[in-house]
C-alpha cells in the first residue's frame, strides 16, 4: 500500500522545549488514520509541522513531494487541507465570504456545500462569528472540501460539540474519507473506532504505537497505558 504522507525523524522545538523528538510514521492513501496521545503530547504540533506552521526539521513527504522547505500556502495549495483545532473561522466575515476565500467563484453555492451542509447555505449572509460551535465546525470543514485535496489534516473536529453534532461530523468525515485520506486527531475513542482504520500514538515526543484502530480501542489495558484513559472512564459517548 502506498502512503500519502510520510514523516521521517521530524523534530519541533519551541524555544527551550523539544516537543517532537524524532517522529516518524506514514499515512496510507485511503481511509482515516487517527493520531492519538495524551493532552499536550504534540498532536497539533505534528499537524502544524506538516503544514510548516511549526518550526521543524526532518523529512516530510506528501505523495512524492518533499515539503519541509516549503511555505505553508504552497503546501496547502498543493493538496493538503487543514481543519484546525479551534475551527478558526473568520468571525467578521460571512459564511459565504469564509468559503469564497478558498473558492472565489462559487463560495457557498458550490454543490458539495449544499450536499453536505445545507444549513450553511441558508446562513450564507450570517457572520461566522455569530454561528454556534457546530456550525462553525461545518464552515471550517466546508472550507477545505472546496478544493481537491490529496490529504486532509483534521484536528479534534468534535471538541465541545453536542452528541448529535458529533455524529453528524463523524458522518461527514466518513463520507469524505471514501475519496480523500484523512489524518485525524481525535479524543473521542468510540468515534475513532467507528471511522478510523489505523492509529498512530504519540508519547514523550515520539511514536509509541502503530496499528489497527479497533484493536487498540478494544484493548482497555493498552488504551490506559498509551492514552491514560479507558473507554469506560471516558464514558461511551
Amino acid at each position, binding site marked *: 500500500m502506498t502512503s500519502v504522507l510520510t514523516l521521517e525523524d521530524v523534530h519541533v522545538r519551541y524555544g527551550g522545549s523539544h516537543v517532537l523528538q524524532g517522529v516518524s510514521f506514514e499515512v496510507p492513501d485511503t481511509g482515516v488514520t487517527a493520531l492519538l496521545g495524551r493532552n499536550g503530547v504534540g498532536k497539533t504540533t505534528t499537524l502544524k509541522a506538516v503544514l510548516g506552521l511549526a518550526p521543524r526539521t526532518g523529512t516530510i513527504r506528501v505523495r512524492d513531494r518533499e515539503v519541509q522547505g516549503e511555505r505553508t*500556502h504552497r503546501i496547502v495549495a498543493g493538496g493538503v487541507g487543514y481543519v484546525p483545532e479551534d475551527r478558526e473561522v473568520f468571525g467578521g466575515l460571512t459564511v459565504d465570504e469564509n468559503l469564497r476565500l478558498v473558492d472565489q467563484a462559487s463560495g457557498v453555492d458550490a454543490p458539495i456545500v449544499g450536499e453536505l451542509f445545507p444549513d450553511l447555505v441558508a446562513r450564507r449572509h450570517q457572520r461566522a462569528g455569530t454561528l454556534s460551535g457546530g456550525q462553525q465546525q461545518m464552515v471550517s470543514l466546508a472550507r477545505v472540501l472546496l478544493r481537491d485535496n490529496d490529504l486532509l489534516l483534521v484536528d479534534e473536529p468534535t471538541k465541545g460539540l453536542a452528541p448529535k453534532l458529533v455524529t453528524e461530523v463523524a458522518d461527514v468525515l466518513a463520507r469524505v474519507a471514501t475519496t480523500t485520506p484523512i489524518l485525524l486527531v481525535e479524543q473521542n475513542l468510540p468515534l475513532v473506532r467507528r471511522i478510523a482504520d489505523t492509529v498512530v500514538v504519540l508519547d514523550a515526543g515520539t511514536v509509541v504505537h502503530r496499528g489497527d484502530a479497533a484493536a487498540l480501542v478494544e484493548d482497555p489495558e493498552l488504551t490506559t497505558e498509551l492514552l491514560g484513559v479507558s473507554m469506560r472512564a471516558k464514558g461511551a459517548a
Partner: protein
Amino acid sequence: MSDLLLILVTGLGLGALYFLAASGLSLIYGLMGVLNFAHGSFMTAGAYAAWVTMDAMPSSTAVGLRLLVAVLVALVVGTLVGVVVEVVLIRPLYRHHIQQVLVTVGLSLASVAAVQGVFGSDPYPVAKPSFMRGTVDVLGARLPVDRFVYLAVALLLLGGLLALLRYTRLGLVIRAGVENRTMVEALGIDVQRTFTIVFGLGGAVAALAGVLFSQYAGTVSPLQGGSLLIYAFIVVVIGGMGSLTGTAVAAFAVGLVQQLANYYAASGIGDLSVVLLLALVLLLRPSSLQGAHA
C-alpha cells in the same frame, strides 16, 4: 456664523489631509501589525517626486496639468518605495514587530538626512494651480477652494478603499488577514504577496498625501513628512488602530478640533489641543483602543 463655516471647512480640509496620511498607516498596521515609521518618508518621497516633476515640465504648461502629471509620478514612486521597503526591509523580519519598527525608524532618519543632503534643508515653494488658490463665497464666508479639493480626494479615497475591502478578492483576503493571518496562509493563500501589495498601496496613498500636503503648505521640505506622520499616529490611535472608518472619523475630528482651538483659544493652541484630545480619548475609552496586535 461665517467664521464658524470657515473654520468647519478648513478643519475638514485639514482632517482630509490627516486621513490621507493616516489611512495607509492604518491599513498596514491592521493587516501586518507593522508600525511603519518610514511612512513619513513615503510622504516626503511623494512630495519631492511631484515637485521635481513639476519643475522639470516646461513652465508654459498649465500648472493644473503639471500637478496632475506630478501626482501620477508621485503615485508610481510611492508604490515602488513601498514595495521595495516591504520586500527588502520588512519581510526578512516577519513577525519580529519591534525589529520591524526599529528598521523603519532607521530608514526614516536616514531618508530625511538623505533628502537634506540632496535638496538642502530649506523649503522650496511649490506651484499651486490657480483654481486651487481661489475662494468661493458661501453664506458670506470666503472659503478656500483647495480645502474642498482635499476633502473630495479624501472622501474618494475612503470610498475607494471601503469598496476595495468589501467587493474585491484582495479586500476579502485583507479582511481575513486582519483577523487571522496564519489561517489565511493555511487556506492556501499567499499572505506575503498581499503584504507587499498593501505596502505598495500604502506607499501610493502616502505619496498622494505628501503631494497634497505640500500644496496645502505651499512648500516642500525634508521634515514635512515627519511632522505630518505624528498627526497620522494620533489619528490612527484615536481611530482604534487599524479600522479604516475609525481612522476617517478620527482624522476629521482632529482637524476640526485643531482649527477650532486655533481660532477660539489662541493661534498655536490647535496643535496642543490635538495631543490633549488624544490624552482624553485614552483616559475615557481605553478598552476599545487596545491594539489587536500586542
